[in-house]
């Protein structure tokens, strides 16, 4: 089953390798892995999409939480009320005859035209990964010369937030003991 893990980790060297090792030691191939600044200074938000058994993923999430520098790790697979968006850049072959058709497909998928040459169009699209799959499918007959996808990022709808504030009072309490 496909699982989605979302994590907040300290932005420091080696963090990526430590996370990767959790999957690599089990021979898991990560489908997508995105990392970027979170709302907290010095804290990176990670989204990982990976195929695997629930038992194994549960163990991976537990081991992930144990990494020094990992604040929050959640398996959000079962969370239905959420957004999962990714971005796609795609370079499509066009000629005078097909250019307009590609432009109207872009319109249909709310994609932006970000670069134009005499033989290509570069389009930028965002949305659910499935939508981007479909967009690529309809573009393929024209000739997809190059594509780049960011991998999905996830966020729950409504007031729910992932952040559990790091450096909380209980951290210091433990140290004092």
């Amino acid at each position, binding site marked *: 089953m496909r699982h989605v893990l979302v994590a907040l980790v300290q932005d420091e060297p080696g963090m990526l*390798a430590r996370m990767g*090792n959790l999957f690599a030691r089990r021979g898991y191939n990560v489908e997508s892995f995105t990392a970027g600044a979170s709302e907290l200074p010095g804290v990176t938000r990670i989204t990982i999409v990976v195929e695997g058994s629930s038992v194994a993923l549960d163990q991976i999430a537990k081991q992930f939480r144990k990494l*020094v520098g990992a604040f929050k790790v959640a398996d959000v697979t079962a969370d239905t009320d959420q957004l999962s968006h990714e971005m796609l850049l795609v370079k499509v072959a066009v000629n005078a005859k097909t250019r307009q058709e590609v432009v109207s497909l872009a319109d249909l998928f709310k994609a932006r035209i970000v670069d134009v040459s005499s033989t290509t169009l570069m389009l930028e699209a965002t949305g659910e990964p499935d939508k981007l799959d479909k967009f690529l499918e309809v573009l393929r007959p024209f000739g997809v010369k190059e594509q780049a996808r960011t991998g999905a990022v996830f966020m729950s709808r409504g007031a729910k937030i992932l952040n559990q504030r790091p*450096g909380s009072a*209980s*951290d*210091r309490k*433990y*140290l004092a003991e």
Partner: protein
Amino acid sequence: MRYTGGEALWECLVREGVDIVWAYPGGAALPLFDALGKYPQIRHVLVRHEQAAAHAADGYARATGKVGVCVATSGPGATNLVTGIATAMLDSVPVVAITAQVADSVIGTDAFQEINITGITLPITKHNYLVRESKDLVRAVREAFFLAGTGRPGPVLVDLPKDILTKPCDFHYPERISRPGYRPVVRSAPYQIQRAAQAIADAKCPVVLAGHGVHVAKAWEQLRCFAERINAPVVSTLLGLSALSADHPLCLGMAGMHGVAWANLAVQNADLLIAMGMRMDDRFTGSLPHFAPQAKLLHVDIDPAEIGKRVPAQIPMVGDVRFVLEALTATVPELDHRDWLAQTETWRGRHPLEVHAQGPLPPQEVVRALYQATNGEGVVVSDVGQHQMWVAQHYRFRRLNSFFTSGGLGTMGYSLPAALGVQAGHPTEPVWVVVGDGSFQMNLQELATVTQERLPIKIVLMDNGYLGMVRQWQELFHGARYIGTPISGPDFVQLAGSYGIPARRVTATAELPAAFAEARETDGPFLLDCKVEQDENVYPMVQPGTSNTDFVEDPRGRAQEK
């Protein structure tokens, strides 16, 4: 105060209360060793191989509960630590490994003796650091000790480039550290204690499982009080041995693949397992579908990832074993399980641990003689293999935290170097090393360290000319084709002599009492080369993939109904 990086490191170690390190110098480590000269309060033991430094730090940590420290140079020095670090990782032992690294400016260029040791040790450390700026050195070392010794302990490595060791380093030792997100849960919630207490009160046939966590938490007294309060038998894992005196009427000894029959039967027939600081290792559980089929599991561990990892826990409890045992003892009513205890004694009577071996010197008799010679109160370090299992079975540990061995990783060659550290923790009494001729030959270079440090380490060599445990598996599961397991060795008595260590050869059971007396009474180290029976097997044995109820007993023993 300004120090060089090298001095700053030792300043940190002094503040962490370190008074001994096991170390091996080298090019990149030179500034570090140079600075060590200014710190006479830190005793430096020169080992003969870096692996031994890591095992010694590990043995010291197990014996004292303090963080053990080993030091190595870059490249091969660092990679030689790897087996020792992995051993500490698998057994949750607090070790700080300091490695020197090539100068920061040449990192990543495959410089002479450069190796990416933080990369190599990433999966076998609790955490590690590569210090690339002087300002980060003190914090990294401070954090390393904090992380190694708190929560579920484990090894932490700090890699220090040579130029960082020579450059000036601002020294400010932080009183407190905060590692956001690192927050081991020590105290379980009151509702969990209540729920656990209720399950214990409801149980008819409870068994307490004592793991290494009891030692780590120094919860020996709490374990005894708890077991006495609920009158439940206590079964140990390999590393849980000596958590409760073997003389205690509730102590059943070790269960698992080579566990004693009555302990396995108690676990298999229990209706509640109260697991304290153990991880349901496959050598302990046997076939999972057959493991303790009627039992609920109350699983206590400080590491949430261990709970439910192999055996589902109906009552999971994250917390420090000592805290939980105290809280439970205060909450549960006094219980009476005399029928259940009588049942375990019946099993003990039906499946006694007897020596059926023929020949002049059965290996089990060597362990029994060691027990006699030390009155069960010796400090024992065992290596890995058949002799390890015979120690676990036949040595009745009457003294708390007196048994040290590599459990999780099963590292052959562990015992002699680990004994260097155990000895540092028990400076006034002999340390007994029980080792096979295979394991001994993996790290016997440390005999030189033993002599150099004049340590009263008594080596009991179980010399059978085989890699015995592997030979046993070949006999049982590979058609007795002994490929790669017959092993020769030197004349061990002469070998010891060339290191200046007195030694004696033992070839018959009758010689054992006098031999052990001589070993004990000789000042300093001693080696007993015990020429034991070559083809003895360890029994009882639960064959891989079978239930712990289906242990195979020594076929030479009386056939008994289960």
